Every structure is written in C-alpha cells, then in structure tokens.
C-alpha cells in the first residue's frame, strides 16, 4: 500500500511549516526527505505517521507502521533486548535478538539497561527495534544521527539489507545517507 499525502498544511502559530504538501510514497521503495534544519522534515514525518494532525489535507497509510523517532524513545530502565521484545513480543528468541545486536555492533548488550548505553548505541538499539517490528511502512527520522563514520556505514548496510522491498520514508539532511539508502529523494 502506498503512503499518500494530499495537500497537507501544518502551522505552529504563525509559522507555516507545511503548505499544501502532496506526494505518493510508493510501496516497496525507500523515499528520502531532505531539506535544511527547521524546514519541516520531522513535522512531515509526524503527520505521515499520524502523531501530529495536519491543519488540513489527508494522509493514507498502512495500518502497521514502525519508526525510528527523532529522539530514541527507548525505555531507559529496560534492557536492550527487553526494549525489542516490548515491540516484537516473543517473535524472536533471545539468541536471534543477540545475533541481530551483533550485526549492528551491539554484541553483548542484550542484558544491559538502555540507560547504561552511549548515545550512538541507543540510536542503533532504536533502529534495530524498528527493523525487527512487524510493519508495512517504516518511518525513519535521521536514523544514523550520532553514529561515527565507520559504524554508520555498517549500520546503513544492515538497514538497507533489512528494508529491501519495504515502504520506507526517511528524513535526513545528509546527502551521503540519501544516495546510499534512497530510491527516490524529495526536497522540502
């Protein structure tokens, strides 16, 4: 199912962030949304996800969605694997989760509380949670933010491999991420 945004308008007070935005995000393709800071990329993503109601316009999207939010939105007091199981239930065994963590450079972190992780590790845990969830559309808000170049490359490869054939909308301001991940790019 495509994600269809029709004539979306959104303003915060006098600040008009989205003005008649329309686009069809094709099923099975990765669309990158680019633009300068403050241009409304995250607002658009929130509207597409249904977190934020538009002032006018319509969005149709699949029922089952997954996301990496602007902030990680992990449960700090839970372990990394508990954060993943919170979303996936018992679909993955402990061993399977540990294997996926290893692929994203989080080997041995399954029983660590999220509050004990560094910023980059939290970001990877949030990304892994989103990728392991059951979804028909995935929304990524600067998913590789805070990762060093070496880690970023391997995590991007992991992400690309695991989103192949899925409907993904990714917000970024990094041209390199965009070229690596996206089938289509739109500028705000």
């Amino acid at each position, binding site marked *: 199912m495509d994600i269809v945004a029709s004539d979306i308008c959104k303003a915060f007070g006098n600040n008009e962030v989205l003005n008649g935005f329309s686009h069809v995000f094709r099923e099975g393709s990765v669309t990158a949304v680019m633009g300068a800071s403050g241009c409304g990329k995250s607002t658009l993503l929130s509207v597409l996800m249904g977190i934020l109601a538009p002032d006018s316009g319509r969005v149709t999207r699949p029922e089952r969605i*997954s996301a990496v939010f602007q902030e990680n939105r992990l449960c700090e*007091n839970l372990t990394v694997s508990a954060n993943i199981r919170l979303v996936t239930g018992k679909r993955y065994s402990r061993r399977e989760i540990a294997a996926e963590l290893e692929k994203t450079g989080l080997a041995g972190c399954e029983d660590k509380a999220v509050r004990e992780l560094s910023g980059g590790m939290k970001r990877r845990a949030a990304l892994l949670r989103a990728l392991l969830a059951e979804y028909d559309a995935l929304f990524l808000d600067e998913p590789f933010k805070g990762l060093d170049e070496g880690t970023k490359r391997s995590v991007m490869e992991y992400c690309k491999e695991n989103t192949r054939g899925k409907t993904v909308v990714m917000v970024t301001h990094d041209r390199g991420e965009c070229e690596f991940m996206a089938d289509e790019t739109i500028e705000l």
Partner: protein
Amino acid sequence: MKKRVITALCVLFWLTVWQLGAMALNQKILLVTPVAVVKRLAELVPSIDFWSSIACSAGKILLGFAMGLAAGTGLALLSGKFSAVRQLFAPLVSVLKSIPVASFTILALIWVSSKNLSVLVSFLICVPIVYTNMLEGLDNLDPKLKTMAEIFHIPPWRRFVGVYLSQLLPYFRSASGLAIGMCWKSGVAAEVIGIPDGSIGERLYMAKIYLETADLFAWTLVIILVSRLCEGIFTALVKLMVKRVERM
C-alpha cells in the same frame, strides 16, 4: 572490602567510646555498657516471650506498611489520572506529613484499641510517603513513550509493564525503602504510648518503668535489627521485581 573495614573500625570506635563512657559514669541506670547490653540480649533471646513480642509488633507494623503501600499507590494513581482527586487529597497528605507521631497516636487511641494502634499509625505514616513518591513518578512519565507504544501497537499488559511500570518502579523502590523504616520507628513509638499487651513497645515501656536500662538498650537494638532485616528483605524483593521487569 576496604570500605567495609573502615565502617567496622568506625563502629568499633564508637562502641569503645560507649564502653569507656559507661565505665567512667559507673551508673547502670543512666548508661549501661555495650557488653551488658549484649549479655542481656543473650538472656532474652532464648525466651518465647522475646520472639512473640517481635512477632506481635512486626505483624502489625508490616500489616500497616502493606496497607499503606497499597493505599498510597492507589491514591497516587487516581491523583495522577484525575486532577480533582489530586487537589482533594493535597491538604490531607500535607497534614499527614506534618502531624507528629505522638499526636497521631493519642488521637488514634480514641478511635481504635491499643492492640491495633501500630497498624493504624504505620499505615498513616506510610501513605503520604508512598503517595508523594509515586505521584512524582507518575508526573515524570515520559509522554513520548506513550506515543511510541501507540505507534508500535504494543498490547496493554506489555505496555503497562514495559512502559509504565519500568518508569514507576524506581520511585516505588525508594518510597517503600523509606516508608518501612519510618513505619518501624513510628509503630514502636505508638506502642510505647498505647502499651498493647505483648508488644515490643510494652517491653520498652516496662524497661523504662523498672529502670532496666540494659533491657531498654537490648530492645532498642532488637528494633534496629528487625527493622533493617525487614527493609533488607523487602528491598531485595523489589529489586528482584525490578530485575524481572528490566528483562521482561
């Protein structure tokens, strides 16, 4: 290890000061030596009365504590959900926090028999501590995690444990740790005023009446030990619960 040695040395230092002070004063009614206290305790321990007094007081104080935990948590949940309930209970909690234990106790003696006095006093001491801490926890719940749970369609039970309980348990842990110690202090104080039969408070009162200072010190030591034991067991149970929730 080094920290434990230092702590043990500090305790030993103060015990020596106590021993030397009591020896210098040489007035058994005013101050007994720690050795005399331990001797008296050794005499008390084998008697059935000793254990029945502990069981009597512990049962009632812990019952009041458990009821206070439940009521404090329940009220906090209601106040977190409905601001009218929060406003309604704010003056009551404020009053409960500031009333001295002695006033509580004397007032409570009018309402209940001295037998159940420590249950009521422990309960009234526990409620505001738990209520205040849990309400703070509820106020600090991250609303963005609620949105996260909605986006991922996390089922209700998993959402309750993973999202809400995991955020509230640290507050519950600190509230219960603080409350259990306070319940023991105030519960025994209430017993000293109400003198219910067969309680630790009665033993303390009798020790005072008959100027048995060694008994007074021995029972005080017992109160400290039993209170710490209860706190330790309860904290360990909550810790276990926290670990289970952390790992889900």
